[in-house]
């Protein structure tokens, strides 16, 4: 390009002149040449009337756009290019895609520089998409978001569902119909949050919807992203980190029912539950209710049955117990009764035994064998007494006999008295003899006589006076004389 700058009235060119000059320079270099260019498809818009497709191509790094250029797919090429692209990538050309385009540089004084796009290499985009997807996954994992929603607890009854969908969409219809047509009418309440679910605007739209839901999170149990009936195109957004991270951070478990036939998107990977279709999503929710409903029914039955069993067991137990108890008590009574009867029955023999034993102890001398009958001992005692009595009698007899003998001796001794008497008699006889000998009669018998005067024997004649009377005693007779003379 030539320098045209002059201070005063400089040499100047018309705009067209310059543009033509630029055009010729470019044509010289780029005419009839095409290049495969890697770029990002920032925007794509089809002009409905002309059928031409206008693209906005950019190259950027993290911070800034480094290059930017318009591109045009002429109507005659558009169909073949988009068909080719879709056939491989399973998604239409859409903003945000990395693409490899066959470009011819064209310059038009009015429209400026642009690429005339004549072909596309869809496999490049596919690779780029896969790369982006991998990057999203890797980043989510790094940030600990990948499992975050999946790990969240789904309420047993996800009753209040915040549905992100489009009211008129087939997917939403399917979802709601499935819920409503379920044979059991559970109290599932759905609140619709409308959002763009595909294409370039999907990410901000979905993010907004998520934010709205989180603004009243206490009213919801779960979020369902429901899409369907719009084909498989424009789902690249679901691989994007931006969207995936928002969903992963959700405070509620997210159910996805995006409904497509392509590979699982990143969002679908990280949601709590990914259902292939909206119907499946509704069924998933209904299943939860069915499971609980079933579980409650089963619980009721279980309680019924368990209680019945329990009560039955308790009743049986008590009944068994009662029977055992009765048996025990009866046994116990019988035992006591038996013991008492035994003692009672043994009593007579005890008594008899006692008496027999007592006999041996009390009076060993009387060793009489007796029948050990009841109160045989009685006769033992009696015998004992009779024995004593006999002993007494015998001892008595001996004693009395000895006394009698003693008395007899005494009697014999008494006869001594007779001997004594005869001694005395002899004594007397002896004295009698003596007296007889000395008796004066004996002298008189020999002729002597005794003369008495006044009764006194006269021994002296002088004492006599003549004339007095004297008595003369002879052996036989007495003479009375008078004294006549004295010699």
């Amino acid at each position, binding site marked *: 390009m030539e320098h045209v700058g002059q201070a005063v009235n400089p040499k100047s060119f018309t705009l067209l002149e310059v543009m033509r000059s630029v055009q010729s320079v470019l044509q010289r270099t780029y005419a009839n040449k095409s290049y495969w260019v890697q770029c990002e498809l920032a925007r794509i818009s089809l002009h409905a009337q002309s059928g031409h497709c206008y693209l906005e191509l950019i190259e950027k790094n993290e911070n800034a756009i480094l290059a930017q250029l318009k591109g045009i797919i002429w109507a005659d090429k558009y169909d073949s290019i988009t068909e080719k692209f879709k056939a491989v990538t399973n998604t239409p050309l859409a903003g945000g895609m990395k693409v490899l385009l066959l470009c011819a540089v064209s310059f038009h004084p009015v429209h400026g520089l642009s690429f005339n796009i004549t072909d596309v290499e869809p496999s490049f985009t596919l690779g780029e998409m896969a790369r982006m997807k991998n990057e999203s996954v890797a980043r989510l994992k790094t940030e600990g978001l990948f499992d975050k929603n999946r790990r969240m607890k789904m309420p047993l009854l996800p009753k209040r569902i915040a549905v992100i969908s489009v009211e008129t969409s087939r997917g939403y219809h399917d979802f709601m119909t499935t819920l409503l047509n379920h044979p059991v009418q559970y109290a599932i309440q759905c609140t619709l949050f409308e959002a763009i679910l595909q294409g370039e605007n999907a990410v901000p739209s979905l993010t907004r919807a998520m934010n709205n839901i989180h603004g009243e999170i206490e009213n919801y149990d779960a979020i369902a992203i429901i899409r369907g009936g719009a084909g498989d195109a424009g789902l690249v957004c679901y691989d994007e980190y931006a969207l995936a991270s928002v969903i992963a951070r959700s405070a509620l478990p997210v159910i996805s029912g995006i409904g497509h036939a392509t590979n699982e998107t990143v969002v679908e990977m990280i949601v709590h539950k990914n259902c292939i279709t909206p119907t499946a999503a509704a069924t998933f929710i209904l299943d939860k209710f069915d499971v609980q409903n079933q579980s409650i029914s089963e619980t009721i039955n279980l309680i019924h049955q368990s209680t019945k069993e329990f009560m039955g067991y*308790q*009743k049986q137990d008590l009944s068994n117990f009662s029977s*055992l108890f009765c048996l025990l008590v009866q046994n116990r009574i019988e035992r006591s009764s038996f013991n008492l009867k035994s003692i009672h029955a043994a009593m007579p023999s005890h008594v008899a035994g006692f008496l027999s034993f007592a006999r041996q102890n009390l009076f060993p001398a009387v060793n009489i064998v007796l029948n050990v009958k009841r109160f045989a001992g009685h006769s033992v005692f009696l015998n004992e007494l009779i024995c004593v009595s006999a002993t007494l009698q015998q001892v008595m007899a001996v004693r009395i006999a000895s006394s009698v003998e003693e008395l007899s001796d005494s009697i014999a001794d008494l006869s001594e008295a007779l001997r004594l008497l005869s001694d005395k008699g002899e004594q007397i006889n002896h004295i009698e003899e003596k007296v007889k000998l000395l008796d004066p009669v004996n002298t008189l018998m020999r002729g002597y006589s005794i003369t008495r005067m006044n009764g006194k024997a006269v021994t002296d004649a002088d004492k006599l006076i003549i004339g007095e009377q004297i008595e003369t005693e002879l052996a036989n007779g007495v003479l009375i004389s008078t004294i006549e003379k004295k010699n």
Partner: protein
Amino acid sequence: MEKKKTYEEAYEELQEIVKEIESGNIGVDDLGVKVKRAGELIRFCKEKLFKTEQEVNEVLKNIEK
């Protein structure tokens, strides 16, 4: 019977009475008393079972409505 007695307590006391009778360490005097007591306890348990069953049935009937 004391009002506050639970089925468990009653049942336990019953078991103890049975154990006592089984062990043989119970006199005839006690036996009468214990058996009377056991009778009361059994009656109490039966009534409690009956009442519990009724309550339970009532509850279950209401659940199914």
